[in-house]
C-alpha cells in the first residue's frame, strides 16, 4: 500500500499522507483549509475536529460529509463550494 493518497479538492490534485482526514487535506490546498462559507459569507474551516461543530462539511463524491471524520481515499472528489 502506498504511503500517499491522491485526491481532488475543488478540481485541484492534492497528495496527502495515507490515512489523513479530508479536513487535514483541505489545509494543504488553501491557507488554513476553509471548508465552507457561512450564511453571511464568511470563510469557515474545521473547528472542533471531532464531528460536533459541522463547520467542515463538504461534498465528497457527491455526498455531504464531515471532512474531519472522513479518511481520504484514492481519487476522491471533494468540493468545498457546493
Amino acid at each position, binding site marked *: 500500500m502506498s504511503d500517499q493518497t491522491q485526491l481532488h479538492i475543488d478540481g485541484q490534485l492534492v497528495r496527502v499522507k495515507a490515512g489523513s482526514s479530508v479536513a487535514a487535506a483541505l489545509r494543504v490546498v488553501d491557507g*488554513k483549509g476553509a471548508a465552507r462559507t457561512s450564511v453571511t459569507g464568511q470563510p469557515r474551516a474545521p473547528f472542533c475536529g471531532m464531528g460536533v461543530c459541522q463547520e467542515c462539511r463538504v461534498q465528497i463524491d457527491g455526498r455531504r460529509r464531515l471532512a474531519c471524520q472522513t479518511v481520504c481515499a484514492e481519487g476522491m472528489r471533494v468540493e468545498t463550494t457546493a
Partner: protein
Amino acid sequence: MSGVAFDTCDVLVVGAGPAGMAAAVAAAPSGASVVVIDDNPAPGGQIWRDGPGASLPPVARQWREALARHANIRVRSGTRVVAAPASHELLLEDADGAMRMRWTKLILCTGARELLLPFPGWTLPGVTGAGGLQALIKAGLPVEGERIVIAGSGPLLLAAAATAIAAGAQVLRIAEQASFASVAAFGASLVRWPGKALQALTLADARYRTASRVLSAQGTAQVESVRLRQGDREVEMACDRIACGFGLTPNTQLGQLLGCALAGQAITVDALQATSVAGIYAAGECTGFGGSERALVQGTIAGHAAVGEVAKARTHDRERARWNAFAAQLHRRFALADDLSALPRPDTLVCRCEDVPFSALSACTGWTDAKLHRRCGMGACQGRVCGDAAQFLFGWTPPAPRPPLVPVRIETLAGLATPGDARQ
C-alpha cells in the same frame, strides 16, 4: 421498500472510546453478541484517536487488540446514531446506508465534546478547539513551522501543546484561565494518582501561564494574531493558529432522547452504571468528564452489569471511587471563572451555523426565544456548540434533543417510517 437494513444484538455499545472498548470487552466472555458503533473511522475515541499524525500509546493498542480478539464483538466504525425509531431500536447511518439495530441491553459511551466559548474572531479559519487541534493533527493536519497559541482550561491544553510540538509546531503560549493557586493545588493533589503526576511532569512547559485569557483573534481571511490577558496585562502575539478549549461537556443527546435522567449536564448512573431507564447503562465522559482511567473502569463495570455479572462488576468499585475522586479534583481546580462570559463583543457571533451575534441574544428570555426568534441553534450543529456557550453565557438550559440527532440523508429518514411499526 425503505432500503433500510435490520440487525440485532444482545449488547449494543455506542462509542468506541476507552469506556466503550472496556464495556464490550467485559461483556464479550459471556457469549453475548456485542456490537460497538462509533462515528470515527477507527476505535479509540478522542483520546486514542489513530491517524497518520498519531502515536498510539501501548495501552490503546492493547484495548484495540482485546476488542479484535473476541469473535462475538462486531465493531462498526464511521456509523452515527440518528434516532430511536422504536423501543430497543436505534436508527444508524454510515457512508453506505442506513440500518435499524435492535438491542436487548444498551451501553451509552458517547463521551464528551469540548466546551467552545465565543470571543471576537473565534470564527476565523485557524481557530480550533484545543482538543480539536490535537484531533486534527492526529488525523494528518500539517502544522510544521506554524506559530500556535493555546488557551482555555484544563490539562488538555498541555496535551494539545505536546501533540503540536511533536508535529513540529512552535507553541508560543499556553494560557490557562485558572489561577496559579488552583493549578498548584491540583498539581499537589496528584500525589494520590502517581501515574497522573508523572504525566503532568512530562507535559510541563515553560510557556504555560495561569490566570490568562484569550481576548480576541485578529485576521482577515485567517488568523494573524491573538490578544491575551495575562494577569493584569494584555499582550498581542502574531501567530498562525489559535486553539481554545474550556473543558468538556458530556454528550448526553442520545441518553436524553431515550429518556435517561441527567444530573447537571451528565447522565445519572447507579453503582452498576445503570441509567434511570431499564436496560440502558452509561459509562465514561457522558456521565461527567474525568479521564480515560475512569472511563475504562466505568466501562468494565457497565459491560459486566449488562450481561448480568453483578459480582464481577462490583469488584471494580474501589478503583472507580479512586478515579471519581480524581474527576472531582479536575472539576474543582479548573472551574471556569465568571468573567469568561464577558469575552464576546456585541458583534461576536455566538451561533456559528446561523451567524447570530451576541447582541441579538442578550435580549432573549431563554433558549426557546433565541431559537424561535433569532435562529440560534437552528443550524447544522443543532445547538451543540452555541447551546453549550449560551448555557455558560446566559445560564440557559441546553436544547432538548430531537431526532434526527445529526444531519442525515433523506434515504435514512425512511428508516423512521417502516411499515408495521406503530411506535414513535
